[in-house]
């Protein structure tokens, strides 16, 4: 029988608890704000003998991912965590992990990239890695960070998937704030996560095989990429099935696309991460006075939930996309690009406006959200009049 402990936990602490309960074989890591608490907490679990993990304190994030790749290829359940410059420093290795089809689970405490130096939350780091071949979850709060991290093992290690998974939580806002959280008992989680039994591994000397082989011209490079694409496609139903299973155990609903009010909403905001609740809170207030507004939040960004997003937006008359990462020189932010492409494919013609917000942890006030819903009232006419900029900054001085 599942037993739940209520505790005051930060997002980082809850990720560390999820790692502990998954009891990984190897955890190579380099600490970086705002991921540091994950490392500190996990190191305590190691010292207390509560996990059997080989904890490898490495000299850089590049080495952390390199060590993770080696460990995972050897057949070990492997986890790590990073943020910001650390993720950037892992860059080339992220592609290696995905291309070698290694089910590494990594938590990223989403943070701004330098320069100027800034330790606070935005999505610049993780969305920069969007093409690296990793599955990506975005947690709204500490509880989701815990749930996503547990589910990540099942998805990554599924024989039809075998892809690395990044579970992300917004730096400081989620990583460091204390919230009321529910921790599932160890046995229930162990049964849910299961044991990792790799089909192939470097240490399986009876069945020798190679990883990261040379695949030059005409030698299966495109085929490998196609296989990654197909694995991503196969991941979506598995993400959902695992989510349903965890929902049945935890009692917390799981949807790759979370919606509020979209059944009759005319004005809808699309968002990811910790600002989702802010949007929902404003939408609730507005709906109380009869305004038809809604919220759509992507809990999974890779694979991109195009079908689910289109279904959620099909009734919208005006759409705002909130981007928390710049694509300097691009026509719009990364989320806007994906949403726009999705709407185009689905034949949805409602006007869309892109907002850049919360960069470097800039506060996401309820007033800011209210202003966006206000803008949407006249979006069609404003677009026709040519007064809408490609990207609208909100919350800057």
């Amino acid at each position, binding site marked *: 029988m599942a037993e739940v402990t209520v505790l005051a936990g930060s997002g980082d602490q809850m990720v560390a608890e999820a790692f502990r309960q998954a009891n990984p074989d190897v955890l190579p890591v380099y600490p970086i704000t705002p991921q540091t608490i994950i490392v500190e907490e996990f190191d305590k679990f190691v010292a207390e003998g509560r996990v059997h993990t080989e904890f490898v304190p490495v000299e850089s994030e590049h080495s952390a991912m390199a060590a993770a790749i080696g460990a995972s290829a050897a057949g070990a359940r492997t986890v790590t965590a990073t943020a910001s410059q650390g993720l950037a420093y892992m860059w080339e290795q992220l592609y290696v992990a995905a291309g070698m089809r290694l089910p590494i689970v990594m938590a990223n405490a989403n943070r701004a990239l330098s320069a100027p130096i800034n330790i606070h939350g935005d999505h610049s780091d993780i969305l920069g890695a969007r093409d690296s071949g990793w599955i990506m979850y975005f947690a*709204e709060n500490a509880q989701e960070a815990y749930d996503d991290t547990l589910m990540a093992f099942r998805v990554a290690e599924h024989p039809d998937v075998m892809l690395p998974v990044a579970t992300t939580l*917004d730096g400081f*806002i989620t990583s460091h704030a204390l*919230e009321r959280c529910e921790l599932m008992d160890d046995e229930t989680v162990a049964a849910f996560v299961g044991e990792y039994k790799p089909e192939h591994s470097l240490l399986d000397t009876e069945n020798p095989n190679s990883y990261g082989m040379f695949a030059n011209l005409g030698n299966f490079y495109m085929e490998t990429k196609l296989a990654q694409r197909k694995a991503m496609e196969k991941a979506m139903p598995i993400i959902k099935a695992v989510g349903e299973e965890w929902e049945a155990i935890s009692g917390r609903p799981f949807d790759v696309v979370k919606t509020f009010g979209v059944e009759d909403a005319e004005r809808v905001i699309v968002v990811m991460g910790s600002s989702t*609740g802010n949007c929902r*809170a404003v939408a609730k207030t507005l709906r109380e006075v009869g305004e038809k507004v809604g919220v759509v939040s992507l809990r999974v960004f890779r694979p991109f939930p195009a079908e689910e997003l289109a279904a959620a937006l099909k009734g919208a008359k005006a759409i705002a996309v909130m981007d928390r990462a710049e694509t300097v020189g691009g026509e719009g932010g990364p989320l806007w690009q994906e949403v726009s492409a999705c709407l185009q494919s689905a034949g949805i013609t409602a006007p869309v406006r892109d907002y850049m917000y919360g960069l470097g942890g800039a506060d*996401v006030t309820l007033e800011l959200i209210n202003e966006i819903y206000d803008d949407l009232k006249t979006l069609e006419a404003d677009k026709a009049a040519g007064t809408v900029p490609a990207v609208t900054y909100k919350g800057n001085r």
Partner: protein
Amino acid sequence: MAQLTEIRWHARAGQGAVTASRLVAETAMDDGQYMQAMPEYGAERQGAPLKAYTRISPEPIEIHNNILHPDIVVVLDDTLLEVVNVCEGLKETGTLIVNTRMDAEEVRAITGAPATVKIATVDASDIAINTIGRDIPNTPIAGALAKVTGVINVESLKKYVEKSFTGKFSDKVIAGNLASVDRAYQEVRA
């Protein structure tokens, strides 16, 4: 969200405001409430002015932003009153609690708090020195907060202090902290 209570803490780094913001939040959680506690992180350096936040609600809290319009402001160091606008955004019918030897009217004069704002003062530093043995005003001021606002229950606070300090601190330190809560609860002037 009608019963959401928002508290903003002002202190200098090292005075325990972050701990206080958590102490109050966790006390409320033990009484079945939902909560958030978060510091406003900057460049950490001892003595620098800092802010921390606590949210308490009987319902799940879904907003994640800084508290701009607090119901309650708690100031752990009265030298901040002339440095920081502690009343910024404080609700007109809000409460301001200050660790100081001054009385409410002196605090009102310095801060410019409107007459509608309730001001409570307590010499939490003196209480801390005489009970805990060190100037760490965060535990006693939580006792004052319980008395003045009722946002947490003082018995729950003491129970939580005892529970969370056991195993980490000596019996003497725990007894001192509990005594500090009682004294601040009795001595706060509102």
